[in-house]
């Protein structure tokens, strides 16, 4: 396996240091490599995979890799159908996860995902220094960053932190210190046989536990103050317990603020106050598990000006995933959700998931190379006569635009050069006359193309009609776009 035992990237000076060997760190390293940017990847782990070395605890992921698709499996379009592989420029490196899928299920297991990430690192030649733990950070007078690690000091002009959002976090509920976090729940489900299990939380990790314990626990109750956000904060993969609740099958899903958890002989006593439906609730349980989420292990980055959102758990980032413009402190992976984007109609980015953040990492690497290292990233060019058909093809099949709705946009500049950029950034900075397109979704769940035309310094938004088959290449779309351009 690439890097194991060889210990590449010794301490020293590098243009860029990447911290982490999960999917975010590997994607960032791959993208920097293909731009010719020298960098060192360090990781506290002893093998690639990041969070997928450990989670989800009951092994099944929630995102698909499809084996049969209408497009060639080594094409860029195939990424649409494969939400788990990291993205590569070389056709032969695309869709690595295919090699780990059986036809028993379209969603890989945790172990398969870990294997796919290791295979990507090996096949693309990524060099990671494993067993090297980043401990602290400082900025020198000349603006460079110094990362102190267990192996020594790394000095760089920019650092990419791909730390995962993987440190257990518990909401501040009296008594919650008495109960295990999701990460500490027993992987042996036998331990919950016949027990009443109370799960604090109602997002993916909480429902993953509930889904995994339905065959074992005698009673499952999930509770948190806010209602379940079906298909946004809980994906279909784990919705079985929710269906159980809505059909009256015995599992209970409560909207309640938990006042305290008390340990009593042989179990727990939970006191809560209903929110959506007010009223006091008192429950008994044999086991309580806090599925209250994770936080980014930012260590001392707060001292270098890194701010946070989401109750201190996620770094607040610029549209290019930097802690602040020019800081040289970038983030990749799950924490890239700290750049919220426009959230039009409340639709969030897919940045917490591999199929979203893999594109962020590529765009981030190009930005980092251009703004901090003076490396000009290559750009394709669109011929003037082909602009309309190019944009409609992108709107119909570009995986970046479909994975990151109203977040990443296809931009074509007046010169014909083209970029994938964060839409929020493109909208807000001075730009010459040009065009950007994005795939967007409204509150009714309709998906449609959005065209942004920049002219004379101002931008106008034009929303085209949805199309039932999501194919925007037809005559009416050609006519409309030609008119706009």
């Amino acid at each position, binding site marked *: 396996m690439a890097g194991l035992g060889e210990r590449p990237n010794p301490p020293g000076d590098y243009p860029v240091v990447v911290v982490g060997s999960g999917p975010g760190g590997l994607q960032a390293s791959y993208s920097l490599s293909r731009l010719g940017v020298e960098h060192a990847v360090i990781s506290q782990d002893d093998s690639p995979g990041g969070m997928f070395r450990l989670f989800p605890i009951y092994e099944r992921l929630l995102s698909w890799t499809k084996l049969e698709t209408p497009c060639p499996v080594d094409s860029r379009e195939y990424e649409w159908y494969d939400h788990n592989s990291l993205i590569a420029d070389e056709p032969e490196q695309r869709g690595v996860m295919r090699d780990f899928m059986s036809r028993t299920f379209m969603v890989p297991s945790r172990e398969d995902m870990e294997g796919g990430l290791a295979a990507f690192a090996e096949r693309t030649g990524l060099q990671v220094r494993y067993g090297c733990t980043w401990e602290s950070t400082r900025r020198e007078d000349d603006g460079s960053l110094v990362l102190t690690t267990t192996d020594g000091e790394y000095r760089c002009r920019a650092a990419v932190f791909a730390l995962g959002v993987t440190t257990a976090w518990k909401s501040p509920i009296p008594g919650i210190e008495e109960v295990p976090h999701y990460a500490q729940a027993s992987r042996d489900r036998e331990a919950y046989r016949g027990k009443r299990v109370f799960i604090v939380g109602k997002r993916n990790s909480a429902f993953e536990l509930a889904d995994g314990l339905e065959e074992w626990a005698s009673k499952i109750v999930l509770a948190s103050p806010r209602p379940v956000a079906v298909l946004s904060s809980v994906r279909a993969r784990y919705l079985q317990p929710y269906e159980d609740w809505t059909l009256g099958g015995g599992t209970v899903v409560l909207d309640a603020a938990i006042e305290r958890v008390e340990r009593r002989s042989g179990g727990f006593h939970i006191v809560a106050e209903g929110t959506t439906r*007010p009223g006091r609730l008192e429950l008994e349980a044999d086991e309580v598990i806090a599925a209250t989420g994770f936080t980014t292990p930012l260590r001392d980055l707060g001292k270098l000006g890194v701010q*946070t959102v989401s109750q201190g758990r996620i770094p607040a980032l610029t549209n290019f995933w930097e802690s602040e413009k020019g800081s040289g402190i970038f983030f990749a992976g799950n924490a890239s959700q700290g750049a919220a984007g426009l959230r039009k109609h409340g639709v969030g980015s897919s940045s917490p998931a591999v199929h979203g953040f893999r594109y962020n990492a590529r765009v981030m690497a190009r930005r980092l190379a251009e703004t901090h290292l003076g490396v000009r990233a290559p750009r394709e060019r669109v011929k003037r006569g082909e602009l309309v058909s190019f944009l409609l093809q992108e709107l119909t099949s570009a995986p970046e635009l479909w994975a990151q709705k109203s977040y990443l946009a296809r931009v074509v500049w007046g010169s014909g050069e083209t970029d994938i950029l964060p839409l929020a950034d493109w909208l807000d900075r001075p730009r010459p006359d040009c065009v950007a397109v994005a795939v967007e979704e409204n509150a009714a769940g309709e998906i449609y193309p959005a065209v942004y035309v920049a002219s004379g310094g101002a931008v106008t938004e034009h929303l085209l009609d949805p199309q039932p088959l999501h194919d925007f290449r037809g005559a009416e779309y050609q006519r409309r776009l030609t008119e706009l351009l």
Partner: protein
Amino acid sequence: MSNGDEIVNSLRGLALFSGLGQPELEQIADPEWERRFPAGERVLRRGLSGSGFYVILDGEAAVRIDENELSRLRRGDFFGEVSTLLGAAPTADIVAESPLHCLEVPGPDLEKFLLAHPRVMLEVLKTEARRLQDALAWRG
């Protein structure tokens, strides 16, 4: 760095959320709704569809049309409710004038949010009435 309690405490100090109990504040303090904007960044964009409702927890923002500043918003002020409730694009930009810390209620959730928290709706209504009164006084 903040935690859940800090957002709840911040909300508790605002007139908009006065009189709400702990469970209701905990429900409102959705971590997914917390936003930070660096100085100079636009929060609402004139002419762009799909925006939300924002309550300022800390910092200052300006209401701008082109280069003209129409008014200044501070902790406790809110914006975006008119465009969200009417389903129209904002008629002005809202720009962070300092690092801005906000709670955003996404557009599609606002109506449900106001119906679920009638005390908050009443405070919004009072503010709208004051804004209308000011506008009429200015005209007169």
